[in-house]
């Protein structure tokens, strides 16, 4: 195999067709494609790709197994470190993680590690389900608050160590952002469900409809419910609004509400499912992160004739993944860059009809290194609009932090926790994922869950030896 062989492309649904359905966009490798791509890996002695993976998957190991037709071996290697490989293979920003470190990427194209991970995980799911081996049980019980990527990972790793683990989830379905946030067309919910079933098979109990902070308190989990440690992975689930005139008009959604209705409540299948969603002909999504791309693409699939991304900086500063921006463009999402709304207006029924956009230009780089958007005095434009989705980021939900004694918080309300261990100011309480870092990625949350599981094990071992 010559070094310069290009990476194997992955088949995808045609943009014109897919922009009207909720089926998965990327279709995945065939066995032949996977083997061709896997054969490009140089099997480095000192694999840098592994260093780029927040959960330290033995990447050359599982790729080697694919090359030698040992798919169950590939699965075993993958699952040693990653509890949600079918999810990660789909939603990780590999270009800035494992694949960014691949030596083939220096002069050519890096190995498509994410696509191979996805292929391996999907192969595994197609097999007859075999229950994972149970380890020697330990007597300690650990409570996990939140069943998003951080909580699921911590729970699975602790269960693999033999701990008795219970996850408390506020919604009626576990999965966090994997279920309510990321759309079906990027991450089919049946796949998330299978990954969660695997974690249940490890012995993890999941209690849904349990709002920690309301139904039960962290203090009660430790003091009266008999848990020896608690991991908080409640994410960044508090939507930010811009506090501009007219933002409470009908037709203005937070991205969380828009995506929760669509994904978790399946409003795209209304009235078969009973949760409604209202979509106009012209939809504007404010923001340019991955959530904004998800919302803009969802709007098209719900029947919007025009879907806009409205962003106050330029294309170069858009925080979304390249692939997501490309997919959005292919599907017909339009971009109003260097614009941001300053007011909304509605009709006599309170329905949004129009927004006023302020135009911006770019100034000097700010603290984040990105050029600062500066409003151009007096330069505003009006735009007729029926639906707006505000996707300018999320803050930490205060329910758990504010109902727990002795938990140190940042000014923004995030939990202060050690980056390597998740240790908080409160003995026996660990935290990780977006509740600590602010809104970040699925894989970083999983990495935090993994590190906390290790730290909880060390904490409980030390306690046992006392």
């Amino acid at each position, binding site marked *: 195999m010559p070094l310069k062989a290009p990476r194997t492309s992955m088949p995808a649904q045609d943009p014109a067709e897919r922009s009207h359905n909720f089926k998965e966009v990327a279709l995945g490798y065939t066995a032949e494609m996977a083997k061709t791509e896997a054969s490009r890996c140089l099997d480095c002695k000192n694999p840098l790709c592994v260093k780029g993976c927040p959960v330290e998957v033995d990447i050359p190991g599982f790729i080697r197994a694919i090359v030698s037709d040992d798919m169950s071996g590939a699965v075993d290697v993958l699952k040693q470190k990653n509890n949600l490989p079918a999810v990660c293979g789909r939603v990780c920003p590999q270009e800035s993680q494992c694949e960014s470190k691949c030596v083939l990427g220096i002069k050519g194209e890096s190995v498509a590690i994410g696509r191979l991970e996805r292929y391996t995980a999907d192969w595994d799911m197609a097999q007859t389900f075999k229950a994972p081996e149970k380890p020697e049980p330990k007597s300690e019980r650990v409570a996990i608050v939140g069943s998003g990527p951080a909580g699921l990972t911590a729970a699975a790793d602790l269960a693999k160590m033999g701990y008795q683990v219970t996850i408390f989830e506020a919604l009626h379905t576990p999965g966090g952002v994997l279920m309510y946030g990321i759309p079906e067309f990027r991450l089919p919910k049946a796949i998330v469900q299978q990954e969660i079933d695997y974690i249940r098979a490890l012995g993890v109990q999941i209690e849904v409809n349990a709002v920690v902070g309301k*139904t039960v308190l962290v203090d009660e989990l430790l003091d009266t419910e008999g848990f020896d440690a608690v991991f908080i992975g409640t994410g960044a689930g508090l939507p930010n609004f811009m506090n501009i005139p007219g933002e409470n008009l009908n037709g203005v*959604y937070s991205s969380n*509400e828009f995506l929760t209705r669509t994904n978790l409540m399946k409003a795209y299948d209304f*009235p*078969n499912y009973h949760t409604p969603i209202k979509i106009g002909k012209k939809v504007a999504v404010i923001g340019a992160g991955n959530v904004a791309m998800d919302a803009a693409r969802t709007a098209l699939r719900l029947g919007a004739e025009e879907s806009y991304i409205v962003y106050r900086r330029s294309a170069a500063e858009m925080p979304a993944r390249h692939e997501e921006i490309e997919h959005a463009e292919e599907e017909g999402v339009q971009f109003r860059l260097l614009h941001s709304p300053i007011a909304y207006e509605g009709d006599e029924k309170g329905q949004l009809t129009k927004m006023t956009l302020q135009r911006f230009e770019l100034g000097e780089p700010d603290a984040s290194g990105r050029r600062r958007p500066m409003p151009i005095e007096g330069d505003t434009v009006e735009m007729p609009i029926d639906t707006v989705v505000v996707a300018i980021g999320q803050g930490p939900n205060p329910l758990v932090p504010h109902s727990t004694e002795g938990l140190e918080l940042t000014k923004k309300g995030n939990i202060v926790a050690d980056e390597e261990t998740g240790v908080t100011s409160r003995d026996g309480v660990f935290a990780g994922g977006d509740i600590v870092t602010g809104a970040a990625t699925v894989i970083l949350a999983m990495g935090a869950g993994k590190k906390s599981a290790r730290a909880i094990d060390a904490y409980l071992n030390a306690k046992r030896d006392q």
Partner: protein
Amino acid sequence: MYKIVRKENLGSSVVQFDVEAPKIAAKAKSGQFIIVRLDEQSERIPLTIADYDREAGTITMIFQAVGFSTNALKTLEAGDSILDVVGPLGTASEIENYGTVVCIGGGVGIAPVYPIARDLKEAGNKVISIIGARNEDLLFWKDKMAAISDELLIATDDGSAGIKGFVTDVLKSVMDRENVDRVWAIGPMVMMKAVANTTRPSGVKTIVSLNPIMVDGTGMCGGCRVQIGTETKFACVDGPEFDGHLVDFDLAMRRSSVYKTEELQAVEHDHQCRIGGIGKCH
């Protein structure tokens, strides 16, 4: 699954369920609410906690069959189960000894006002309760309300029970004859708005419990946002109780009507399915 241990029809459209939910019963306080999802296809709807029995591990929910989901809920019987019940949600009522308190329940709003009135009575207040509805069929819990009130007054629009008129008419006469320290009003948005306008001139603090559209009920979506004075608040976590004199009721009512056409569509769709004779269509 949450089992319905008792069902009682409180009128032709108002239904009471006592539901097994020990964890919620253990924590529930007056003023709080729950979110209910009937089955896999259902939406999540908020209902206030009308009562709870910590020992029996049950909570009481009361609803009026007004739309698709509440009509579906009404078909359940004792022994059936509700798929999801989550709570207690929201901030509890601020119960103190204020002196003389008027507690007003309009229609199905009688249910949530009951535990508040009971707690206010226990806290030493003189409690004057006013319950009202369009007609007698929509009134319930007269005895329960009377038992925890110093005085119970009734109003119906058509005069089929109590005085003929609105709860605000009764409230005015109460305020004319005695010094009222605080008012609680729970019911339809128009009623709460009218009560707030009645007490506004005298400045008697008036607490209302808002019932906007909700999805998660835990503060993650802002679907329930309301305007309180100059601030936007999330009713599910900051409320549902607010100072009635600061609430933008017109905005709240407009926001409540956003899915009216979809609501009708859901009812129509379900009707088609039933008469279509092709069995379950979802």
